[in-house]
C-alpha cells in the first residue's frame, strides 16, 4: 500500500512531486489519468490521492467522485493549473465533490508537503 497516489497527465508534475515525496520519506504511486488512477487505487489503495483536474480520458472531478464513493475516509487533494478562467471554479467544484483540499498551480514545495503531512498525520 502506497502512501500517496499522484494522478496527473503532465509527466513533469508527476515526476517532480514523486521525487519530492520520496525524499520526504513517503512511498509514491503515479497514474497518468483518472482511469489509470482508479485502476491503480483499486489494485493498491493509497492513503492519500493527489488529483489533477484537467486530464484526458477521465478528468479530476469525476475521479474524485469515484474515489470518494469507494473510500469515504480517503484523503484527496485536488490540484489544477492556474492562470486561466474557470480553474478556481473547478477547485471549488472539486472540494464540493469530495476533495479535502485544493491547490492551484503553481504551488510551492512547502505548501504541498505541509498539506500532505497534515492530512497523512491526521489520518495516521
Amino acid at each position, binding site marked *: 500500500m502506497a502512501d500517496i497516489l499522484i494522478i496527473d497527465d503532465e509527466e513533469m508534475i508527476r515526476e517532480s512531486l514523486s521525487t519530492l515525496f520520496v525524499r520526504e520519506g513517503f512511498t509514491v504511486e503515479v497514474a497518468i489519468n483518472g482511469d489509470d488512477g482508479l485502476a491503480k487505487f483499486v489494485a493498491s489503495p493509497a492513503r492519500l490521492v493527489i488529483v489533477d483536474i484537467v486530464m*484526458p*480520458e*477521465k*478528468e479530476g472531478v469525476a475521479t474524485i467522485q469515484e474515489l470518494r464513493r469507494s473510500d469515504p475516509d480517503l484523503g484527496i487533494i485536488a490540484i489544477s493549473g492556474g492562470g*486561466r478562467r*474557470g480553474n478556481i471554479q*473547478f477547485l471549488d467544484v472539486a472540494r464540493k465533490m469530495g476533495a479535502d483540499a485544493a491547490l492551484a498551480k503553481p504551488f510551492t514545495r512547502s505548501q504541498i508537503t505541509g498539506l500532505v503531512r497534515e492530512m497523512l498525520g491526521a489520518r495516521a
Partner: protein
Amino acid sequence: MTVTAHLDRPRVSGSGGRFRTMLARGRLIELNLDLGPIRRELGDKWERAAPSVRRFASLVIDRHLGDAGSFTLSGDVFIIRFAGIRASTASRRRMEMERDLHEMLFGSGETEELEFHGHRPRPARRQRSRRRSLRRWLTSLRRVIPSFRLRLFRNDAAASDASPEDAGQDGTPVHRVAVPPFEDTSSVDPAGAAQGTTVGESAAPGEPPVEPSKAPSSPQSRGIDRWRTNATPAAQSAGGRGENDPSSRPLHLGGGDQDVELEFVDSALPGAGDAENRERLTTASSRAKGRVRRNSTDVLERALYAAIEEARRQSERMRVRFFPPLGTRCLYRPMWLVERGMLPIYTCLPACALGPFEFVTGEALVPKGAGAKKTAALDEMVLDTVVHDLAPRPAAQMRSFVCLPVHFETLAGDRASAYFAALDRIPAPIRKRVIVEIVDISQGVGQLATYSLVRKLKGHVRSVIGRVDLTDMNFRVWRETDLSFIGIDIECENRSETELIADLNNFVVPAKQYGMQAYVRGVRTLSLAAVTVASGFDYVDGPAIGEGDFTLRTDPQPFGIYDVYN
C-alpha cells in the same frame, strides 16, 4: 403572331438614362410579342390561363433577353426593348421567344401550326438541340413552376369570385391588366429619368401622369422585375377598371408582391424537405391530375402538371438517394454559455430516422466530402425543419436562440439564393432569435468572400458564427470577417484526448489574443468539457453538456459546472 418592329423610330416611354442614351445612339430596338394567337388557340380557356401564360411569356422573354433590354406588357402584347444588339439579332431572339413560349404551352409538335411572322422551319438537328436546351431549362424552372401552378389556382378562385362588374358585355369574365400605354419620348420625366427610377407615364389618356417605379431587384427576380406600374385608383376607374377587381391590378413584373411570390417559389422547392410544402404540392398535383383526366385536351394544365410532377419526382429521388426515407427531424442540443452559467442557444442537429428509436446525425448523415448537392440538400432540410419548428411560436415566448448550421459551400453555391429566400420564411420577430453557423470555412476561403456572406446573412438573422478546422489558426482573417464568434467541432475527431487537449489550448489562446469569442461543439466527455472550460472557451456544446431534445426549448436554462458533473 404579328410582329411590329419600329426599327426606324423606336417608341420608348422612358426607363431611365441608360435606355435614353441607347436610344440616342440608335441601339434600342423595340419589338412586340403578341399573345393573340395563343389566346385564339386556347379559346374559352384563355381567361383562366391568361395569368399563367403571361408569366410563362415573361420568363421566356427574360431568358432570351438577359440583361440586354427590358420588356413590359400592354394588353396581350409584350413590348420588348432590345438594347445594344443588332436589329437582325433582336428579330431572331424575338422569334425564338415565340417558339419557346409556344413549345412550353403546346408542345413542340404543334409549333408549325401557328403562323409566326417571319418563322422559318429549322433543320431537324437544330430543333433537337434546341429541344434539349429547352428541356434543361424546364428542369431549372422546377423552382418556379409550382408558383405558377398555385397562382393559377388563385386566379381560378379569383375568377370564380369575380363580381358581375368584372364581366364583359357578353357576360364572360374579362381579365384586365392595367398597364398604361406607352407614349412618345416627349412624355419622359427628366427628373425621374435622371434618377433612373421613376418615369412619368399616363395610366389613361387625359389622366395625370402616374409614377411607375422600378422596384429593387432581388436575386430571384433578376431580369424579370424591370417594369412595374403603380396605376392610381382614379386612373383605374377612369379606364373602366374596378378598384376591387383583383384582375384589374397592374401586372407586376417585378418588386412588391412579385418578390414575395418568388420567395415562395423557393420555399416551395420540393427538395427543401418541408412536409407542408410537399403536402401542398402533392395536393396540387392530384388536383391537376384530376383536371387533366376530366379534360384531356387541356394542354396547358397538362404541361404544368408534367412540370410539377417532374420537379416532385426529382426531389423525391434526391431525398431517397441522399437520406434515409423514414423522416428527418432536428435535435436541439444546448450550448452552454460558460461565463453566464446558462444554456441560451440550442443548436440544430439534423437527425434522420433509421427506425422508430434510431437516428443518425452528423457525419453519419453527411460525411465530409459528400458533395455539394447532398450538402445543400441537408442544409435546406435543416432550415425547413427549423422554419417548421419556429414558425408557430409567438416571438414573445421565444427567449432562447436557435443555432442553424449551414455549410459554406451551400451559401456560395447554386442553391444560395434558394437558401436565403427560405431564411426569409422564418417570421421576422423570430429571426432575431436565429444564429446562423457557417460550417467548414476552410483556410482556402477568402476573407472577402466570407465577409460578404456574413454581411448578407446578418440581414436575415441575428448573428453569424463560423466553424473552422481545429488546426485553422487564421484568426487575423476571421476577425475581419464580422463573425460574431469562431468555433470548432470535435465530435468526430479521432485523435486521442491527450492530443485534442493540446490542440484545444492552441486554438483558444490565439482566439483570445485576437479578441474573438470561441466556441466548441461536440464535447463528448467530462474530461473534454473540463478541458474546454479550463482552456477558456466561451460556449461549449456536446453530449457531455446535454444530449438534446427534439422539442425546442424557448427559455434559456440555468446551467453551471455542477450540472456537468451531475
